[in-house]
């Protein structure tokens, strides 16, 4: 008997609608767009800072436009989402075996979260928010 298998192609531009977990994955990947754009904005800020007090203060003022507020909210959420997915993945990417057993994954991710929190507090204090 000859074989005549049926080949089903994956729709290359819409496949991620097939399952919620693919949408979650795509949202994780899309964070890069916002984070990348945000970093470019930071470079612009550095440029303004290098140009002197006047242009730096104009830059800070420009950040207050409604468009900029919306972008900052989006970038902040994207960065948070990236951070949680990244720290949750550390236990998968770097399992640690001590003695016979593996360290529980939640400890590895948990340690990252603790360091994250500490670093964030330090940056906030350095920036003189309080």
């Amino acid at each position: 008997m000859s074989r005549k298998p049926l080949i089903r192609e994956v729709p290359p531009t819409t496949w991620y609608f097939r399952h919620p977990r693919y949408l979650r994955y795509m949202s994780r990947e899309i964070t890069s767009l916002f984070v990348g754009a945000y970093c470019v904005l930071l470079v612009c800020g550095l440029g303004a800072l290098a140009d002197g007090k006047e242009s730096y203060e104009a830059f800070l003022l420009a950040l207050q436009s409604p468009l900029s507020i919306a972008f900052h909210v989006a970038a902040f959420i994207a960065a948070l989402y990236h951070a949680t997915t990244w720290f949750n993945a550390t236990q998968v990417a770097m399992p640690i075996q001590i003695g016979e057993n593996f360290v529980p994954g939640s400890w590895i991710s948990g340690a990252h979260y603790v360091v994250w929190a500490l670093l964030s507090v330090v940056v906030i204090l350095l920036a003189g928010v309080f």
Partner: protein
Amino acid sequence: MAKSNKPVVWFPFAAGGTVIAFFIPVIALLTLLVAFGKVPAGLSYESMHSWLADCVLAKLAVFGILALSLWSSAHRLRCTCFDFGLRIDTLVAAVLYSAAIVASLAAAMFLFRL
């Protein structure tokens, strides 16, 4: 099939992903405050200028954070383009990686000028 040179782009991606996770949320929070009109004291021209102009280590840290985050975002965006069905990977990669490099060089230049 020869072994791939992918580590060249992937290693900085992984390092950058870690840097983004640790630093970008809090930095974005600070500039979000600025966007809402509350400029934290440390972000004023005087204090920004003084700690960046005097301290080489601070310059290096800022450059490191920016360059790695930019590279990481560019690399992930490249994969995302493919996932969205854009099958011109070489072009996408060239554009995005160059953009990351140009932005990093600009950052280096600005830091140097401070």
